[in-house]
């Protein structure tokens, strides 16, 4: 007799009516015994049913639902908010370009140049500080990292509390 295949492989193959798996189950009493135990367990599991929910579940849900706006109204409100933000952005762009929206590209390019100069300026300043006071700078950076980490952890904890199921 061939060595027994892994039980998972064997039973999954047998469930697919694989001829080799079925032949092995017919010839191997050990595997056949295990397969029968699984079959019996499946039979027992199938007899289980969901419990009845508490009698007041529906009433409790509906009491909370009664305090909520209709879903369609929420969708409408969300849509209007998006529309308002979009219109506001367009208005700002219009005002910023004095009515000439064609200038938007030029304004964007000049903003990139300004920010680029600011970035290089900051880099040079940091390099100067690093060359004169490396240790205080490392200590300060470490402090910033610790404070930021603690802040993130507090935020995460707050999020978990918010996600808790309210009674």
């Amino acid at each position, binding site marked *: 007799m061939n060595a027994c295949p892994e*039980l*998972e492989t064997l*039973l*999954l193959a047998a*469930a697919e009516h694989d001829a080799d798996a079925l032949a092995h189950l017919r010839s191997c009493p050990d595997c056949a015994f295990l397969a029968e*135990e*699984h079959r019996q*367990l*499946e039979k*027992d*599991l*199938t*007899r*289980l*049913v*969901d*419990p*009845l*929910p*508490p009698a007041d*579940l*529906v009433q*409790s*849900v*509906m009491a*909370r*639902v*009664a305090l*909520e706006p*209709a*879903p*369609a*109204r*929420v*969708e409408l409100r*969300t849509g209007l908010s998006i529309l308002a933000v979009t219109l506001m952005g367009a208005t700002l762009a219009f005002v910023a370009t004095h009515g000439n929206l064609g200038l938007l590209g030029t304004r964007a390019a000049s903003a990139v140049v300004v920010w680029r100069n600011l970035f290089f300026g900051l880099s040079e300043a940091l390099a100067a500080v690093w060359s004169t006071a490396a240790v205080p700078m490392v200590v300060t950076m470490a402090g910033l990292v610790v404070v930021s980490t603690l802040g993130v952890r507090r935020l995460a904890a707050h*999020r*978990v509390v*918010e*996600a*808790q*199921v*309210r*009674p």
Partner: protein
Amino acid sequence: MTTLLSSWLPSPAALGSILAEPTETVPYRAEVHAARRGDRSAFEALVRSVQRSVYGLCLRLLRTEAEAAEVAQETFLRAYQHLGRYDESKPFDLWVLAIARNLCLDLLRRRSRVHTQDVDEMHEALPSGERSQEEGVIAAEEHRSLEVAMATLGTDDREVLALYYVQKRTTKEIAQVMGVAPGTIMARLFRAREKLRRQMKTEDAQ
């Protein structure tokens, strides 16, 4: 708020799976449509239709009646609040089950250990499907030992067993609820069953 929503709404994988696999019949469509327009009696009908499977899954995962009832309530409330995000062409009950599952997993993540009394409480709450006078005390005891063994399994195992054997869901439906590939469900079922079999052997030996 956005991050909060993402923690309990069905995962992108689950939604992708739901979107990718259209179903033949979609029950509850009319009720959902009416509920979206603000018809609360239509939503109540939806709650009544799926409350047992939602509460059952919550109880199997959480193992305490009070928590299961609370999470079931929260599930329906969030389903109502976010009906706008629900795709009406897909099964409503699976969407709600996925919300319930995610809320249960959130709660379980906050638990550090399992209390024995919780398990005992659950055994009292879970009925047997075919318990009758003829089956008598022996069947009841067998049922209890099955529930005891099942309660010792991990969340994933309890979940897949409950959905497949208790709620009689298909592997495709389970995959949608759990947000995993349908092809993995049979293997998950086997592993869960094998753990259960070994656990019951251990209990029998004691």
